[in-house]
């Protein structure tokens, strides 16, 4: 294949991503590919480090969801120590994980995607960003900033800092919650819930204007994968991995995290650096699955909190089976923000939440451990092996953006077929193809698209001939 992109093997991305759209001789789109690397260089330089350093080291893979890495990593370390961590520590870890979910979803929805939704896909790209939104729709922009601030400030107050905090440790957390902080956060929740519900209403009102996008933004049958509790409620910290098909029939009721390798395989395509995970029992490529907010709402039976469950009932009316259009990732994110706020409130009201015993101490007692949790973008897995000294001898990280790789490629192909015409790249078409990627909110777009545009190279090709090329960022 003629395209080559430069990939930095150690950290996440080299600086730009690339979409290639292939045309046939009649000028019709035949295929489209999204290229981005994963974070996996970490797996090499973590070798030889003591296992207890892993939460702090792996948190550095990502400045957007460091808490997700902390949680998955600490859970893998709990397994290595073979401890059951104190119940209060579980609850506190759940709270910080939900705060992460709220702030990340708020960033994705308000800062990154709402400019498309409120100003339109064809709006002037110079004002189609959060700063433009502050001028044209100040209330929506301020709502987004307030929600993100809430999530980030809960993380900061619990863990000391917002990005790369060190409070979540193997065996639990390093400091208990104080009554003052609990009351402070509890007081802040009701106005945040108001914002989240108001935003959901606004979003529902906008739906009619996006029928074509809903129809063509990665709208296809696939499997969905996500954590659920023992009674099949929405879950982000613990539980079992449930798989459903496009009709919401259960494909697997609950995979134990430690046995993930029996169910998830990774295909390597000759023309891409990215591995494509698929559901092993069904095979490649039909075993394509999606993870993240949309997948989680499709796999669970209920959220387990009143306002989120009410919103989920309305969401279910979109489709008799699973909700298939990736455009609805946005919708799912807003419901999860509501859930996150309600669940945080419920956890804070638990009688043992102020308990001082929040950490189990132990030497390593097992040579292998798997930690699985739901990051904002989907299932995140850390898998470590250690030697006799407790030093990491092997590790594997499976990251949400990687799970969705196959689905993202299929999604941009579908959108390109619908919106790219002839041999020129028009701004509106370009933005729609990009917006498909934003539905999945891969770390890449989330981070680099923060305020401006996603640094991106888009090429339109016929065989080896480049018909048109646009470079941003």
């Amino acid at each position: 294949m003629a395209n080559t992109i430069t990939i930095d093997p150690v950290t996440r991305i080299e600086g730009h991503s690339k979409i290639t759209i292939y045309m046939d001789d009649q000028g019709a789109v035949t295929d489209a590919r999204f290229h981005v690397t994963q974070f996996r260089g970490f797996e090499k330089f973590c070798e030889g480090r003591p296992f207890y350093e892993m939460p702090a080291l792996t948190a550095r893979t990502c400045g957007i969801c460091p808490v997700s890495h902390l949680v998955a990593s600490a859970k893998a370390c709990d397994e290595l120590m073979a401890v059951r961590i104190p119940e209060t520590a579980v609850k506190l870890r759940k709270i910080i994980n939900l705060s992460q979910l709220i702030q990340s979803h708020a960033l994705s929805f308000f800062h990154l995607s709402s400019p498309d939704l409120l100003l339109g896909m064809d709006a002037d790209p110079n004002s189609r960003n959060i700063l433009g939104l502050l001028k044209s729709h100040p209330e929506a922009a301020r709502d987004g900033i307030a929600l993100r601030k809430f999530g980030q400030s809960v993380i900061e107050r619990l863990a000391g800092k917002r990005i790369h905090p060190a409070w979540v440790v193997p065996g639990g957390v390093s400091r208990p919650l104080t009554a003052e902080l609990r009351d402070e956060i509890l007081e802040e929740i009701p106005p945040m819930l108001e914002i989240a519900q108001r935003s959901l209403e606004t979003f529902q009102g906008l739906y009619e204007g996006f029928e074509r996008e809903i129809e063509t933004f990665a709208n296809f049958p696939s499997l969905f994968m996500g954590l659920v509790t023992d009674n099949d409620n929405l879950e982000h910290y613990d539980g079992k991995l449930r798989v459903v098909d496009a009709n919401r029939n259960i494909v697997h009721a609950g995979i134990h995290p430690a046995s993930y390798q029996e169910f998830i395989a990774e295909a390597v395509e000759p023309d891409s650096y990215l591995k494509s995970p698929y559901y092993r029992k069904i095979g490649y490529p039909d075993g394509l699955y999606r993870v993240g907010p949309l997948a989680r709402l499709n796999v669970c039976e209920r959220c387990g909190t009143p306002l989120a469950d009410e919103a989920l009932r309305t969401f279910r009316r979109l489709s008799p089976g699973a909700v298939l259009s990736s455009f609805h990732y946005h919708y799912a994110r807003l419901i999860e923000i509501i859930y996150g706020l309600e669940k945080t409130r419920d956890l804070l009201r638990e009688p043992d939440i102020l308990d001082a015993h929040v950490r189990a101490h132990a030497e390593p007692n097992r040579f292998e451990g798997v930690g699985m949790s739901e990051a904002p973008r989907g299932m995140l897995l850390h898998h470590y092996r250690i030697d006799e000294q407790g030093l990491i001898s092997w590790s594997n990280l499976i990251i949400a953006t990687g799970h969705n790789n196959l689905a993202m490629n299929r999604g941009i192909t579908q959108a390109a077929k619908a919106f790219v015409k002839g041999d020129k790249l028009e701004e509106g078409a370009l933005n729609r193809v990009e917006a498909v990627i934003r539905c999945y909110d891969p770390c890449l777009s989330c981070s680099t698209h923060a305020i401006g545009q996603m640094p991106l190279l888009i090429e339109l090709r016929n065989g080896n001939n480049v018909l048109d090329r646009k470079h941003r960022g």
Partner: protein
Amino acid sequence: MAAKRTRKPKLAVWKFASCDGCQLSLLDCEDELLAVTGQVDIAYFPEASREYIRGPYDLSLVEGSITTPHDAERIHKIRRQSKVLVTIGACATAGGIQALRNFGDVKEFTRLVYPSPQFIETLKKSTAIADHVFVDFELRGCPISKEQLVEVINAYLHGRKPAVPTHSVCVECKRRGTACVMVASGIPCMGPVTQAGCGALCPAYNRGCYGCFGPMETPNTPAASGAFSRLGMNEDGIIRTYRSFNAYAEAFRRESERHEPTNH
């Protein structure tokens, strides 16, 4: 002397190899963000086209380390377009956590990680921005402190030097009233050789500092290592302690190399 402003200053943010946490610190200035939009023109990741750097910029904030030949060229273009260039975070100021590969063989990394390593174009080392171009100010931290970032932006927009301390984390522990974790609890702590900026966070949580802000001004690293070994840390442990987020910052790199078996 404050020259009369006829236009708003132009601010740009650039990203190299990094986790994005530092530039997100800018977004974390929620309330300040609202104010800042009125004071400066933010040309983040400017509208591209093929000549994708269009300046000049009054202030460029650069996040991330240089890891590819393309980036090594790109940083020169950015420097030429920037009146003041400030690097933010451990990646930009010291090569970041990915500089851990500087101590090994990079080909081994790519082979392990990618199925077709021949496509990967990468430099042998992950290096700080200042190794490539002149940098006006280096803001440390993994990630940077939001308050220090606001101070730096403010200072440069008003033509003064930022007031960012270069003393050790120990001073922050004293100010905070935290008992020394090394003296009181025998926990190895990088605080005595690490620059302040985090507010001495880890010791307040009864952990040793692990050096997020890089070496302080003139650190006495051999003395710190001596204290670590008296607390029972072996040579491998000492090497690892210096090799984390600021592994390639000169003072930390030298000290870690001093403890490698061949250098005894």
